């Protein structure tokens, strides 16, 4: 307990609080701009922390991290241009809400959900990090294979309106996921000798292209430019969601926070998987699944609670085992070691003060971005009143900068433009873009883990069902596939009778 008081005192100093505010604002901005990922935001702060005392350095990095994940939701909702892949699921319902003039309300819910998910995961990190970290070790290649399949199954949830077009879009994503050097044999697959493609089709330019660039094209086409501002004109001014809506979403918030925290613990699983699984679960448990994708506030809540719960989750294996939960926390590890703190058990003994200061500051950062978010919400919404002719070029500008900044390669900018055209036509012909991105993220996870499992089990396929955890995940996948079909069948029967 003493250590918590000391940590609290460390956070409450004027310098620490100023660092916290600056970090939170910077993080929100990084998250909102397309292409500036959380990883990049934290990495850019590392050199600044060189000369700082370790506690301040950690406060800065932590604040940038958690608020950047939240920041992505704002542009995802208002402009349908998610700043990071973590917020794609948020856009599915958030953007229809904005178009209907409920943008501020959607941001309000996203803010509350992010706060909820963030706080739950930090409390979990504070209270039971060491036992939970074993989850990171229990998951072997077999389990990751099932997790990836489970993630792909959520595509069914995202596209339930247009299943064939959705599956086609996912198939394109899986095909794109095959591009690059084969990590087991070193062979080049569909790279056409382009070394820019050796690591596969880079995710960020695809994301920016499909969502941001295509949106810029949309806004530039006269017949469509009115869509966004028309709704926004009817904006009623409510930036805090109705209490009834919040109460309705409580179970979703809780469930999504748990999913987010657990997925966060798994190294390499990724924030967007957590958001999509939570979104799909919320839809499955909803009394009105048909409303999802058309502006259901519960969809926003599910995605945002999950993606912010991931932040605390990823820090669990990072701090307890020295195994970073994702790319951002891998950068974190670099920041820690520079200050002589080697991630692992010694963080909770030798460096306990700094470690607990970080954890306590994360609670503060979560509250801070929520307060800032709710306060700035009504101003941010005015972005939708900017005419399409101005907004479109602006989005295009940020998209170009964002896709270039990733690797400082012009190739990636052309890639984003290409995928922007693809996204524009997909939308016109009503092919959903989200399945393509989910498949592009999950394809490589599925492939390498399947092959790792096969090598480890010496090509014995039963390994996927003979391990208890594998079997449990396998049953989850089967349930997720069978239950909706069975429900529909029962519904149809009760209708015909």
């Amino acid at each position, binding site marked *: 307990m003493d250590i918590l008081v000391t940590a609290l005192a460390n956070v409450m100093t004027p310098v620490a609080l100023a660092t916290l505010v600056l970090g939170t604002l910077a993080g929100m901005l990084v998250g909102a701009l397309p292409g500036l990922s959380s990883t990049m935001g934290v990495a850019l702060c590392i*050199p600044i922390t060189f000369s700082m005392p370790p506690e301040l350095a950690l406060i800065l990095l932590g604040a940038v991290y958690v608020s950047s994940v939240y920041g992505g939701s704002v542009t995802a909702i208002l402009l349908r241009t998610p700043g990071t892949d973590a917020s794609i699921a948020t856009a599915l319902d958030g953007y229809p809400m904005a178009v209907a003039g409920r943008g501020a309300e959607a941001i309000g819910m996203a803010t509350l959900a992010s706060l909820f998910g963030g706080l739950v995961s930090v409390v979990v990190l504070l209270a039971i990090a060491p036992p939970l970290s074993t989850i990171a070790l229990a998951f072997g290649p077999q389990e990751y294979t099932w997790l990836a399949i489970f993630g792909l199954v959520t595509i069914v949830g995202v596209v339930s309106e247009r299943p064939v077009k959705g599956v086609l879009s996912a198939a394109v994503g899986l095909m794109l996921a095959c591009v690059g050097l084969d990590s087991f044999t070193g062979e080049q697959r569909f790279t056409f000798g382009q070394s820019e493609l050796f690591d596969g089709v880079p995710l960020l330019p695809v994301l920016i292209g499909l969502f941001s660039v295509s949106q810029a094209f949309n806004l530039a086409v006269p017949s469509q430019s009115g869509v966004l501002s028309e709704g926004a004109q009817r904006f009623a001014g409510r930036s805090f969601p109705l209490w009834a809506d919040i109460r309705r979403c409580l179970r979703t918030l809780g469930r999504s926070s748990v999913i987010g925290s657990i997925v966060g613990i798994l190294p390499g699983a990724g924030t967007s998987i957590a958001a999509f699984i939570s979104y799909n679960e919320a839809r499955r448990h909803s009394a009105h699944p048909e409303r999802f994708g058309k502006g259901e506030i519960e969809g926003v809540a599910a995605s945002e609670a999950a993606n912010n719960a991931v932040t605390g989750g990823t820090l669990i294996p990072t701090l307890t*085992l020295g195994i970073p939960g994702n790319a951002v926390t891998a950068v974190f590890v670099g920041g820690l070691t520079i200050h002589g703190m080697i991630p692992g058990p010694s963080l909770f003994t030798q460096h306990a003060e700094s470690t607990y200061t970080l954890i306590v500051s994360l609670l503060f950062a979560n509250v801070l971005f929520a307060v800032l978010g709710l306060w700035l919400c009504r101003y941010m919404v005015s972005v939708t009143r900017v005419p399409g002719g101005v907004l479109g070029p602006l989005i295009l500008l940020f998209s170009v900068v964002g896709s270039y900044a990733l690797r400082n*390669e012009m190739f990636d900018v052309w890639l984003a433009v290409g995928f922007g055209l693809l996204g524009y036509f997909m939308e016109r012909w009503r092919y959903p873009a989200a399945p393509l991105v989910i498949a592009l993220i999950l394809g490589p996870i599925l492939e390498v883990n399947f092959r790792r499992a096969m090598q480890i089990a*010496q090509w014995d396929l039963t390994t996927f069902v003979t391990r208890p955890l594998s079997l449990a995940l396998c049953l989850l996948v089967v349930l997720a596939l069978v239950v909706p079909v069975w429900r529909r069948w029962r519904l149809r029967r009760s209708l015909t009778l």
Partner: protein
Amino acid sequence: MRLLTTTTSTALAVLGVAWGSQAWAADYPSKPIEMVVAYGAGGSTDTMARIFAKYAEEELGQRMVVVNKPGAGGELGWVYLANSEPDGYTIGLINSPSVETHPFTRADTVGYTLNDLLPLANVVTDPGVLAVAADSPWQSLDEMVQAVRAEPRSVTVSHEGIGGDDHLAALNFASTAGIELNFVSFNGNAEATAALLGGHIDAFEGNMSEAASHIGEGDVRGLAVWSGERMDAITDVPTGAEQGYEVISSASRGLALPAGVPDEVYQRLIEVSRSVIENPEFVAELDKLNMPLDPLYGDEYAASLEASQQSLKAVWDKNPWIEP
């Protein structure tokens, strides 16, 4: 933000050329220097580059702007470095053995050769480590080799990328011991360490800087370090040679310029590198990161890269690790 700094430095560079065609090597450096890192921001190469840049700025009196150009196992960044203006205003980090192997393993598509680069100084040499989880029955290389002999190809060993130094070290060990290992490829150290600690793989081949903290904590046991002598950070771990397996393998990080840089600039930068590498504060920072210093300058560094490339090429010609 990085784009902004890049744009500014490019703008400054253009200005510099227009205004100072008189700016001879004597005034060097008269504008910010770009430092190309062929790996992502926040990684260990990037961290080392930024620490080096911080001290080099003091020596040079000019800003050093780190620019990340990750991709294709370093190739994108090195192609960029090789093709940049040889005026001393672009410096890059090069990583061995990848910088040596790409030119022959990707002969058809690769965009640079070692001759396009002017090696400046090697900074860090991070030896390979073969490790097992603390609860593994094997205490030594011999015990592991016996287990493999009893059941060939049954032992799974992680590496972090085909043709990378981990993979090459494990291949070298396998051929020295006359055994066949079951290699499992992982994306980076975090996933491989998690798989080792979780008991999903039998052994882990990585670098000392990554494994040292886990060996120190006691959850991982180092079976061998592939260096000439034992390393300070992990003194209990015997070398391969001590146990009768003559394997030397490491990952090195050094500095290089595009070929054709004027000699005065080249000499000046060697001196700057030397002062940074000998700066006790720089040494202390690298020590915290478990990155062992291994200074080699100018011709000496170039010769070692050349020799290493030739011996790797000989292995490749006999037994390529990527099927053509």
